[in-house]
């Protein structure tokens, strides 16, 4: 008994691993005197060679094993990692078919609302392409090309006015609603439409809307969706680059025939924050709402640009007061 009392205090058995015992035990008891003469014998004069001091006499055992801090750090880091994974799997809402209310609201914004909203200041307008730009067509019709991605918050903002404007020239089917990706993307969870899987028919123009990636982040990045045809790739490589746009390869990328181009959103996605697709759709018809000012105002600019490639058809749309006014904001 007395021998045990004189022994240096050891760590609790629960925290002792064979490796630990060997490492620290050697340092504490494997020295001359302490180790060879045995614990409990006089250790005076037997200086430990180790730099680690043995715990003083009377020291209480640790509450936890020595590796506890490392486990604690690992648990915290692991939990944050799991939270990030959950964010990407559960919080990014799945893409689902747009409700009748949403599709109806997009395609039936009253003419009076278009005219009342006009073109509020602060909206970005499509940039004109130089005269002599080769025709951009599909199936014999002037082409409007959109390339974006479901995770992209600026694409989320831009789809609304693009869908509203295009609905004045034709009709969509199989539109979906979704939202942009969550944290750490800016403007996370911006509610939006998706052109993936949608179709569009119009007697005036052709529309190709491509979403190149999902809003779900996997180990290797966002999942792939639509693949561009060689012709679409050529258009993107040619026109989604300076001098036509400021930033090369930016999305959303919108090419309006051989007349206008832009990448980025016409307004900040912040306007849509916290709203559902149905709420946004419902506010489109109200010219006093911030959503309508941003979406319908941007749609007026897009409509004016599209009228340039459809030969000002349909006439009632292209000669409306808002579109005529917007045309003046577009360079030519």
């Amino acid at each position: 008994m007395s021998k045990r009392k004189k022994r240096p205090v050891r760590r609790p058995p629960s925290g002792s691993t064979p490796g630990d015992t060997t490492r620290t035990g050697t340092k504490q008891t494997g020295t001359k005197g302490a180790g060879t003469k045995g614990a409990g014998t006089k250790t005076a004069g037997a200086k430990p060679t180790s730099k680690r001091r043995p715990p003083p006499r009377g020291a209480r055992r640790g509450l936890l094993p020595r590796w506890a801090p490392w486990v604690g750090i690992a648990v915290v880091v692991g939990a944050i990692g799991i939270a990030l994974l959950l964010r990407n799997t559960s919080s990014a809402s799945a893409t689902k078919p747009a409700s009748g209310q949403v599709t109806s609201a997009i395609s039936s914004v009253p003419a009076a609302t278009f005219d009342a909203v006009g073109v509020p200041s602060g909206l970005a307008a499509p940039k004109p392409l130089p005269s002599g730009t080769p025709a951009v067509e599909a199936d014999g019709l002037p082409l409007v090309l959109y390339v974006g991605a479901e995770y992209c918050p600026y694409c989320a903002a831009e789809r609304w006015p693009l869908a509203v404007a295009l609905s004045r020239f034709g009709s969509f089917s199989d539109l979906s609603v979704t939202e942009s990706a969550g944290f750490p993307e800016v403007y996370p969870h911006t509610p939006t439409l998706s052109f993936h899987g949608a179709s569009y028919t119009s007697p005036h123009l052709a529309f190709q809307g491509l979403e190149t990636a999902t809003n779900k982040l996997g180990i290797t990045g966002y999942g792939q969706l639509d693949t561009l045809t060689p012709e679409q790739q050529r258009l993107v490589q040619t026109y989604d680059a300076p001098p036509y746009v400021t930033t090369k390869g930016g999305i959303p990328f919108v090419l309006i025939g051989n007349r206008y181009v832009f990448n980025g959103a016409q307004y900040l996605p912040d306007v849509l924050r916290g709203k559902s697709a149905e709420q946004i759709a419902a506010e489109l018809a109200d010219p006093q709402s911030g959503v309508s000012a941003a979406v319908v105002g941007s749609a007026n600019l897009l409509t004016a640009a599209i009228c340039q490639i459809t030969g000002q058809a349909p006439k009632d749309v292209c000669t409306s007061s808002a579109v005529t006014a917007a045309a003046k904001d577009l360079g030519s």
Partner: protein
Amino acid sequence: MRGRTASIIVLAVSAAGLAVSIYLTIAHYTSPRLLACGENGVVNCEKVTTSQQATFVGVPVALLGIGFFAAMFVLSLPAIVDRPGMRAARLILACVGMAFVLWLIYAEIALIGAICLWCTFVHLCTFAIFVAVLVEASRPAVPASQR
């Protein structure tokens, strides 16, 4: 890191966490716009501090932060740091605080979609305390008279 070092770290970090928690509590009860925090979508203090997750059973989490850091500060004061049971109390409190912070981080990332820099500072303080207390608890306790 010896127990004394750990308790000094806990004491200092608790004081810093307490100060920020008081600031966040004042902002909660007055105007969240008081918070000097950038807003670019991801970093948005106002969105976080006015969210549903900013209160826990009706109590603002900033106020809970004051309670946590004040308690940790007191438990680490030199006068009582070595009293029996204090190490266990600090360990339990640190584990509870860290678990709560993990919930708040999850809420920010997955539910709110924004982070608050002031809140993140508080979370880092809690993490530092958690690690220091774990280190302290994994070392033999040395009576003050033998230090």
